[in-house]
């Protein structure tokens, strides 16, 4: 199994800083902007983006946490049920610009679930999507507004995002199949 580091801690930090600036630039400030992170690593990313935005704009942006378990399209008949955690969005999203944040954009199914979950909470004026890594292979017509890094992958490869909050370091790894595995 091959494991390649595609982002180290320094470039991870720069990437999140750039993404935060892009959010401010695109929305011409942070008026009506709120951040919603998808559990688990999207939540940590959202808090980091909020901190950087506060430093550059001197305004606090609100951060919510979204759990998409109840909206998954593969909920039934799994051998292992995904653990249900709660959504914590303690503000009204009506009329807000939501920046939805996740670590990896892959098939787009997680984002589809997240969009439905958000719509059930109210009618935001706009939803934008921010991801740290876009690895391709979309199965739904979904595109991110802010992308940290495009990582071309094959379907069998894995992208692993590590964050200090849970994994002890900030890094992005590409885990490839070795020749023997990919031949199978």
């Amino acid at each position, binding site marked *: 199994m091959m494991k390649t580091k595609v982002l180290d801690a320094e470039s991870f930090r720069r990437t999140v800083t750039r993404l935060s600036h892009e959010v401010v630039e695109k929305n011409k400030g942070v008026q009506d902007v709120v951040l919603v992170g998808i559990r688990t690593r999207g939540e940590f990313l959202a808090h980091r983006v909020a901190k950087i935005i506060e430093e550059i704009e001197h305004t606090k942006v609100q951060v919510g946490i979204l*759990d998409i*378990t*109840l*909206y998954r399209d593969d*909920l*039934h*008949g*799994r*051998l*292992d*049920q995904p*653990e*249900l*955690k*709660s*959504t*914590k969005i303690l503000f009204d999203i009506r009329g807000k610009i939501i920046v939805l944040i996740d670590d990896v954009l892959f098939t787009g199914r997680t984002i589809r679930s997240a969009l*439905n979950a958000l719509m*059930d*909470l*109210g009618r935001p004026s706009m939803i934008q999507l921010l991801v740290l890594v876009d690895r391709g292979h979309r199965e739904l017509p979904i595109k991110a507004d802010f992308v940290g890094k495009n990582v071309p992958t094959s379907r069998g490869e894995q992208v692993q995002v590590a964050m200090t909050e849970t994994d002890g370091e900030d890094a992005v790894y590409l885990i490839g199949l070795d020749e023997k595995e990919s031949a199978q």
Partner: protein
Amino acid sequence: MKLQSRHLLGMEGVRKEDITLILDTASSFKEVLERPIKKVPPLQGKTIVNLFFESSTRTRISFELAERRLSADVVNFAASGSSVSKGETLKDTARNIEAMKIDMVVIRHAASGAPHFLTRVVKANVINAGDGAHEHPTQALLDMMTLREKYGTLEGLRVCIVGDIVHSRVARSNIFGLKTMGAEVSVCGPATLIPRNIEELGVRVYHRLEDVIPHVDALNVLRIQLERQKSGLFPSLREYHRYFGVTKAKVDRAPKPITIMHPGPINRDVELSADLADGPHSVILEQVTNGEAVRMSVLYLIGTSN
């Protein structure tokens, strides 16, 4: 994580990790109940029938709300005015309902073991909403959830169940569940209403409230069925109240405040005094809210398992 069984028939034999999963999931569902739109989609396309052969208001409403909030399609069946009054057997009722392509059955029945019987004749998932004097698992789960919210853990918690233990499915389910979770359980009531050999379940027996009150964190006060008086199991409601009625004067002798629980409906000033039921240490309405969250949790975990 996944529950071991595809039915919920009782608390007896349910593993500790399964109870914890149900309670953790229920805590997450409480957030859904705080939303302006209290509806989520996980059971979309599932059909659930509520088979209530015994009258019930709050359990049936609580199950029905939980089912609808998970986006299931719901059919209600009450024994009175149905084919049952024309002499249909439980087996035929169940098979007919199954022929209508039902995914889950919630059943309440006066006969102990009716839900277990149902699992042998239908393919649907079965949830016991109370069978005779046997079990009422979702009530025990909501009681445990309420206590866990208040104390953080059930391990070592001292709970006394007061009243008519012998006829109570709530008592049995609570004893099984609480013991599995590591709580210390006792029962208190007149000797005529305490089952013989109940100590074998690992509970202590008291016949005087005054003896148990100094040693408990919570009292789960059961409803006294008025018809038990007619069968001579206790002399009068007044006498019952005097000896086993939970009152402020009695609990005030405890070294620290005792949490008051009741599965409802309350006979005010019979088994429980009104000032305690409405007092600061009563968690009776939290029990009702948690009941909905717990039922959502059970329906969700079982309904998405196959």
